[in-house]
Each structure stands twice: as structure tokens, then as C-alpha cells.
């Protein structure tokens, strides 16, 4: 991928925590490119390392976590930025003006004791922006997430429903015109109907504001309606990556297939639904070979001793499984149709160039 197409390049990324019982390795040697204007979904179960990977995009892994490796950000014009080497003040600017985030936790939330208007204004002020122009943009952004701007700006956060708050946060995150928006489980605490509504909105925002989105979640059905490409994390590693269609119809890692099969689906007869057997690995105890081998139905001695690298399944589709060719037969997915629809799926992103 040439630099003009790539907005973020992650190479050899590791995230570690020093713990009493040893070093906890929560992201292991991840290599990943994000293309400009795409929506990349990162899927994984809780504790898979996906949030740490997301935080690394903004060098926001919290102490005592340490990110090593390289995260290169390529602005539309200008020199590339090595994110993990930014100073604190450079980071402050970078985090709002280039890459913004909406995280589930306390890292991005409204201050409970000031009105939301104040927080929009302060954000503009802190970054030396023109306030009237910025507040105009705030109005526009709030409207585009289907909120009544004046009512929201005059509220305190606790006066808003969860769905309103999350949409207001998304509007705030876009205030300083970032190019990349990283969303970590932004909708997890909300009702499904609101989740799906927000995802529909994000899709509209992406087109309207020319955004690149990185959307991290454990919710596969939600992700597939939005993402152009999906990266799968298992046990602190990237295990598979490909277009959403490829992953749905030609998943080539046994874990991805098990995950697809375990996802509740309204069309699947209930007795055909299955679960992923075995338990999740521990970030301190290092598993030899493939980290999925203890749970994998087709693992053999090679899998238990040698670590599978990312292998190309076909263009832009990679899987970290020695037997990526055998995976589809070995791990059937009950919801999957026998044939991929010829037209492909119509995702919400249909029709956009990417």
C-alpha cells in the first residue's frame, strides 16, 4: 500500500504491562495498515488486546502499560508522524486534530459539573481555535447526529440519555476536524436499537466528513453492517484480516469461524447454535506455537510448537493459521449460506469508493 492510501501503519506493535506475577503481554507483534477513508473493524472478545491496540493508535495506553514498535500516522499533506514518539504537548494536539477517539471508559466522557456548551468551547479554546466558527461547526455536528444543538449544549451530561450522550461525544470528537476517528465499544452500554442507529449515523458521518473509522467491538453483527474490512484479534495477536465479505464467506482461521458460528443469528435454528469451547488464554502465561492451538479442533504438533505467521489466503485476506485452507471444512458455520450472494452483501457503506 502506498503512503497516500495509508493513513496509519502499525508495525511490530507490542503492548506490555509489568505485573507482580510477571510480564503481561497484551498486544503481540501486530502489523496492520489502515487505509484512508476506510472503516476498519477490529473484533475480539474482552481481554483479547483489542482495546490496547486501539489505544496505541493515539499512544494512549495507560500507565504502567508500554507500547513498543511503530505507529506511523500519515497526514493528508505533510510529513508522517511517529505516534509513539510524540511528546505530551504534541500528543495533545495530535489527539484532537488528527486522530480523535470515542472510548467506552472514562477516557472520553463529559465533565459532570459543567454544561456541555462549556466543554465544546474549552476544547476550541485549548487548541487556539476561533470560537464562533467552532461553535457553528458544533451546531452542525450535533445536528448531523440527530440532536437538537441548543438543547444539548445547555444540558449537563447526566441530563442526557446514554444514546444522546454518546452521540454528543461523537460530535465533540469531530470538533477539531480529525481525519481518523477511533471508536472503542462506543455503543456497548446502549440498547441494540440505539447501537444500530449510531452505526448508521457513523456511516453517514464518514461520508459527510471524509473520515477514516477504526471501530473496535466484540459485536460481530454490528460490525459487519459498517466495516469495509475486519481484523480479528485473538489472545493478543492479530489472527485474521480481510474484507468484510471475505471474512463472512471465506473465513480462514478456525477462531474466526468459531466466532462466526457462535454469534446468535435470528435465522439459525436454535439447536444449531454453538459455543466456543475452552477458555481464553492468560496474558502472562505464554502459549507455545499458535495461541489458539489449545482450543482449535484441527491443531496438530506443528501448531503447538511453531507460531503461525500471517499468510495470504488471497488478495488482501490474511490468516495466521497453517491450515487456513482446511479451516472452512473443519469448522462449519451454520448460519452461512452455501454460496456467497453474487452481488456481495450490501453493507451500509455500499457505493462508496474505498
Amino acid at each position, binding site marked *: 500500500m502506498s503512503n497516500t492510501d495509508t493513513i496509519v501503519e502499525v508495525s511490530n506493535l507490542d503492548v506490555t504491562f509489568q505485573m507482580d506475577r510477571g510480564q503481561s503481554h497484551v498486544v503481540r507483534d501486530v502489523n496492520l495498515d489502515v487505509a484512508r477513508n476506510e472503516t476498519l473493524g477490529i473484533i475480539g472478545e474482552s481481554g483479547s488486546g483489542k482495546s490496547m491496540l486501539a489505544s496505541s493508535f493515539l499512544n494512549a495506553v495507560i500507565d504502567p502499560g508500554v507500547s513498543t514498535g511503530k505507529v506511523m500516522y500519515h497526514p493528508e499533506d505533510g510529513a508522517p508522524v511517529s505516534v509513539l514518539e510524540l511528546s505530551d504537548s504534541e500528543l495533545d494536539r495530535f489527539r484532537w486534530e488528527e486522530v480523535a477517539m470515542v472510548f467506552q471508559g472514562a477516557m472520553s466522557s463529559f465533565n459532570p459539573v459543567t454544561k456541555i456548551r462549556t466543554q465544546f468551547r474549552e476544547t476550541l479554546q485549548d487548541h487556539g481555535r476561533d470560537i464562533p466558527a467552532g461553535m457553528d461547526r458544533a451546531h452542525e455536528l450535533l445536528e448531523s447526529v440527530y440532536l437538537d444543538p441548543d438543547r444539548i449544549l445547555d444540558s449537563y451530561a447526566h441530563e442526557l440519555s446514554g444514546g444522546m450522550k454518546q452521540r454528543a461525544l461523537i460530535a465533540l470528537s469531530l470538533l477539531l476536524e480529525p481525519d481518523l476517528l477511533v471508536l472503542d465499544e462506543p455503543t456497548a452500554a446502549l440498547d441494540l436499537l440505539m447501537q444500530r442507529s449510531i452505526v448508521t449515523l457513523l456511516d453517514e458521518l464518514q461520508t459527510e466528513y471524509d473520515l477514516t473509522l477504526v471501530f473496535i467491538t466484540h459485536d460481530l453483527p454490528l460490525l459487519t453492517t459498517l466495516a469495509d474490512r475486519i481484523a480479528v484479534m485473538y489472545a493478543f495477536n492479530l489472527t485474521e484480516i480481510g474484507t468484510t465479505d471475505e471474512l463472512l464467506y471465506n473465513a480462514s482461521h478456525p477462531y474466526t469461524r468459531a466466532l462466526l458460528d457462535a454469534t446468535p443469528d435470528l435465522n439459525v435454528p436454535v439447536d444449531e*447454535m454453538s459455543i466456543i469451547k475452552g477458555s481464553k488464554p492468560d496474558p502472562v502465561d505464554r502459549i507455545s506455537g499458535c495461541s489458539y492451538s489449545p482450543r482449535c479442533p484441527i491443531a496438530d504438533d506443528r501448531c503447538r510448537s511453531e507460531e503461525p505467521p500471517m499468510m495470504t489466503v488471497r488478495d488482501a485476506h490474511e490468516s495466521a493459521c497453517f491450515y487456513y485452507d482446511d479451516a472452512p471444512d473443519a469448522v462449519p458455520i451454520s448460519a452461512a449460506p452455501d454460496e456467497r450472494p453474487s452481488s456481495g452483501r450490501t453493507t451500509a457503506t455500499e457505493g462508496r469508493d474505498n
Partner: protein
Amino acid sequence: MSSEPMLSIDDVSVAFTDGGGLFDIFSDSETVRAVNDVSLTLGEQETLTLIGESGCGKSTLGKTAIGAQQPTSGTVRYRGQDIWKARNDAGSASIPFDEIRSALQIIHQDPGSALNPNQRLRTSLMIPLKQWYPDLSREERVERIHTLFEQVGMSPPDDYLNRYPHQLSGGETQRAVLVRALLLNPDVILADEAISALDVSLRVEMMDLMLELQELFQTSYLFISHDLSNARYIAEKSGGRIAVMYLGEIVEIGSVDEIMENPQHPYTKALQWATANLYDDGGDATFPLRKIDVPDPTDLPSGCHFHPRCPEAREVCQRQHPERIYIDDEETNYARCFRADEQHEYWNSPEITSGSSVDSS
């Protein structure tokens, strides 16, 4: 055992005056009708699934059903005994209030909250047992806990019983809380979003466990969720019904087939849209609501409460409140939408064209 249903809820409404916080934006002190004129029955070993958005009243209805919330009007009966009569006029009751409360148990949204973070599991579980069954010896109590732990797959029990809540995974916490509810041998378990906090891949496993235990312990479930696919899983596997709540009312109730294959209410259809399937062809891409947010519950819309968001709303929906329109001969399953009635004047009423705040083009 009497022929009375396990639980019967008749014309129940629950109103709150100025609930703290949640809806502050709307007013200072007004009444929220959390539950509005709901009637339901729950039989032995039956499972009823309640779905709807937060604030729709499903948790309040659930709590009211198990006697943890007193209704403003209407009655809630356990095996024929009015729960609140039993509580307020113990002399007249055929079943004492205490017995009713221990027969009706709850598993919470936040399962961890049921376990004291500073106590080992053993202590957390022994206390309620001691409280409800003072006659059991310590050995008997321990044995009961051990047996249940084995049954939920937490084995060997002592390994788990010595732990503190933070030393359990999400799934283990759920299991421990399930054990805690089952210790008292309840007739009804209210599971309020009990699996929503789990990873998607663990939910099916947890629901299976709940259903397995239902058979073993012959409990009825009131299962509350905002997720139609979970609701459908539980309802289909247990042969139960699904009730859809919106702004305090049950707007549709029916068998899994009726709700999934032939939903009558546009809101049920919206919930279905929200439950994205992996392998759908995406044909249903249009946004099924005219507004994203639920209206102010202290100031309910006129007519059909759903009309400001309903994509099918017509003029009559703004002024007439839909009654229950039964869709089966036994009159148990119904929808509160004029569209379920082929004869209704709705079909000649002009469409509402303005007020659309979302289109997903």
C-alpha cells in the same frame, strides 16, 4: 398445587413521581408512568421474555411481578395470593409474604452487585441460606452449595468458594449469581439483562445453562433483554412467548413464530432491524424509525405512543390510542397497532409526511 397460574398480573400500572436523574432534562417534578395497564400470566415452568429499549418499563414490570415493587394500581398474585395483601394484611393471607419473596428471585443486570466484593463466595452464599433456612445444619448448607456448583459446572466447588468476586470471570460470576438465586429453590427467577454484559460468544452458553437448570429445578423465568436475538433464543428453546414493551405498555405479545416471522407492530419490526444478522443480504437497509430518541416519558405523545417514531403512522395514530388487537382465537396474543386490524379506519387515514428526522439515504 392449585390451578392458579404461578404469577398473574392484572391491569398493573406503576407510576413514579420525579425519578431522580434519568429524565431530569424534561422536568422538575412530574409523573412517569413506567408501566401502564399491563396484564400477564406466567405458568409453571413457563418462560416469558420481555424486550424493549431502556426506559420502556421492562425492569419495573419485572420487579413488580416478583413483588419487589408495589404497583400504583392493579394486582399481582402468586398462586392466587395477592402479594401486596399478603404483605400489608398478613392475617388474611394464605401464603405469607416472606415465602412469596423467597419463591420469587432476581438475577440482576449487574450480576456482580449481588455478591459482596469483600466476602468470599462461600460467605456470600451461606448468608441467604442461613437466613431463609435457619433449620439447616452447616453441613447441609455446604452440601447444597456444593451440589449446585457442580451442576453449574464450577468444579471442584471449593476452588471457587474460596474466591472473592474479583477473582471470577464474567461467566463464572453469572454462574455464582445463578447459584445464589437457585439456593432458595425459587418458583420464578427474574433475569434482568442477566447476560447482556457477557461477550457475545458466551451468551449462548449461559442461556443454555439457564434453560438446563430450569428443567432441573422446575422454575419459571421472566427473562428481560433489549436484545431480540437473546430473547428469541430463550423463548424458542423454552417454548415461551415474547412480549415487546414500549413506553410502559406491552405493544405486542406472541409466540416466537409470530414475533419473528410475522410481527404486527412497527416497533417490533424496528427491534428486528436492530438485531443485525451476519448473513442478511442487507435488503432491509432503510432506517425503520422516524426519530432516534424515545420521547419524554413524563409527557407521553397523544394517540399511539409510538406515533412520533413510527414510519407507518397516519393521522388517526396521532389522536387515537390503539387498544389490544388480538391475533389469536384464545385472545392471549395481541398487538397495539391499528395495522393489525384490517377493518380499522387507519387504512383510510391520511399518511403523516412531515416530521421525519432520519432517512438513511
